[in-house]
């Protein structure tokens, strides 16, 4: 490769002579994507337009009937609203909490490493495990947390009280996300140019003004990233958490989109409806991703 290199041409040394070697190297990853992503997605796409009989022996093309049915159902509307409220509330609380904790820990004179390690632990747990911990803590009559609530006069029974079940799910999710947000805000705080904070100190920005006028705006790119990541987490990855805590109950009070999807697919055996719901959920999250990319591109300074 002599002379000048045009854009898009590979760098010298990154060039494979044969055609088969690159494909061979890509094969394991492609296989994983095909089996665990492409195949189920295509299957869901197909199922969304077909209706099978009860014995799985025959199928019939039903067009948009599943879509119409799902979108028209009151249960789906309920789950959608619940999920939106759950996602927004969880993200907002865990963002605010993670930010506040990160700022507080950065401001410490000593013991920073200790607090960083402690606040990080919840993130190291799988959602199902942290949910199991909370179940243990908030089991009526015997749980430590439940006991405290009884002590202050709350009659605690999330298995019956919709509001309490929702609060429990909310608290567990926030607890877990908080660690993640804390981690990212902490890293972002440490990577802020020190001279900017020094300039703020010289300008006389202290305490709350410093946080509001300087630190929070400077961390906007991190916030943007975390909003999308948190929302995605809440939409998708909270299945295990809800399954362990409440199984969507009582009376659908904690049945979010992802949990309803599971119920319809594996309890009600309504493949069509589940396929439609998973497609809609995927659309929602893809939309979030696109939004994030758009905003990020606009924010990146020239």
């Amino acid at each position, binding site marked *: 490769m002599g002379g000048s290199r045009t854009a898009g041409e590979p760098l010298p040394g990154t060039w494979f002579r044969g055609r088969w070697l690159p494909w061979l190297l890509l094969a394991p990853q492609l296989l994983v994507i095909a089996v665990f992503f492409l195949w189920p997605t295509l299957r869901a796409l197909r199922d969304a337009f077909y209706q099978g009989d009860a014995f799985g022996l025959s199928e019939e093309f039903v067009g948009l009937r599943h879509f119409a049915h799902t979108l028209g159902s009151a249960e789906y509307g309920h789950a959608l609203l619940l999920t939106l409220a759950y996602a927004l509330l969880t993200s907002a609380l865990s963002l605010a909490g993670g930010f506040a904790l990160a700022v507080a820990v950065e401001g410490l004179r000593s013991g920073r490493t200790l607090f960083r390690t402690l606040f990080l632990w919840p993130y190291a747990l799988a959602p199902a495990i942290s949910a199991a911990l909370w179940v243990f803590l908030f089991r009526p009559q015997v749980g430590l947390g439940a006991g405290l609530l009884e002590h202050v006069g709350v009659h605690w029974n999330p298995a019956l009280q919709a509001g309490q079940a929702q609060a429990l799910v909310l608290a567990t999710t926030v607890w877990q996300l908080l660690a993640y947000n804390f981690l990212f805000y902490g890293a972002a705080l440490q990577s802020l*140019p020190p*001279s*900017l904070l*020094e*300039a*703020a*100190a*010289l*300008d*006389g*920005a*202290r305490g709350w*003004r410093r946080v509001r*006028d*300087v630190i929070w*705006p*400077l961390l*906007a790119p991190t916030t943007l990233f975390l909003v999308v990541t948190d929302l995605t987490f809440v939409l998708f990855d909270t299945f295990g958490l809800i399954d362990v805590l409440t199984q969507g109950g009582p009376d659908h009070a904690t049945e979010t989109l992802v949990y309803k999807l599971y119920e319809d697919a594996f309890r009600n055996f309504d493949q069509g409806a589940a396929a439609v719901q998973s497609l809609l959920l995927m659309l929602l999250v893809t939309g979030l991703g696109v939004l994030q990319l758009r905003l990020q591109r606009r924010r990146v*300074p*020239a």
Partner: protein
Amino acid sequence: MATLELYQVCKRFGAASALTPTSLQVADGEFVVLVGPSGCGKSTLLRMIAGLESPSGGEIRIGGRCVNAQEPSARDIAMVFQNYALYPHMSVRENLSYALKLRKLERAEITRRVDWAVDLLGLQPLLARKPGELSGGQRQRVAMGRAIVREPQLFLFDEPLSNLDARLRNHMRVEIKQLHRRLGTTTVYVTHDQVEAMTLAQRMVVMNHGRIEQVGTPEEVYAQPASAFVAGFLGAPPMNLLAARVSAEGTHVLVEDLAPLPLSAPQPARAGRAVTLGLRPEALLPDVDGCWTVTLNLIESLGGEMLLHAGVGKQACVLRIATTTSPWREGDTLRVNVASTALHLFDADSGQRLPS
């Protein structure tokens, strides 16, 4: 405006000493430049004056008032940072007015001061822009604007021109000098660039290894460097430093393989001892009757003048000749004369200047 006084100010980081106890007085309205290689303690000293670092000992006074215990914002100072440190999310106008807003000045007063700085620095077309949309020179100018709107008692500059290209640096240097002339505010300016130091300073402080080597006007420091370090740090190209020896009688200085040079001030006390001989590049003059013979290794033309890199005995030196065309070629030998008044002698061990 105010005086700045440092009494035995020092800084240790753990066991390492970044600044040995240092005292310095800066007069009201004076422009003082701290200059030295990186790690010499100049930035540490400036940051202690600003209150961004706390001294390990000593006292800092601004306007006669001890500020050791005061927060940076309470010291009535303004600082310009090397990387400008403008708030990227605020417009130029917001950057300029932020400190004033925090001080709860009246809106009319803020507008007056910002407009004044904008006029002075020609920032009018940039007011609505964000720092990300400005060039390096424009950012630098906004950073200066942010400093002057505060009408501080003391300006601190931390290598403000280091991130600019050479042309812009020369331009901004002139602007800073004019700004100081107009405002007359006491200024402490840190740089590693000796040209900046020479051109800007009313008084310069040359620092090395956490201590002050010499304080004086640029002319004094250039003409009478207090140590071999200062001699080798200032001037472009810097002074030639040659290993030499005082003759047995103490009347001449000897460089190996070369004719002895007479000393205008004999050194009987150092007779026979090793010294460092300092010669400015312009002190070596081509002369057919010259006492030294040198070999030209390399010729650099700067347009109006030439730098001749030459071998003198077993050592090397640089000559600066004010000529546009060279009658010599690389490899030629050349006779040069050395004026006895142009000799600088330094102790070979301590580097301290010897009377000459």
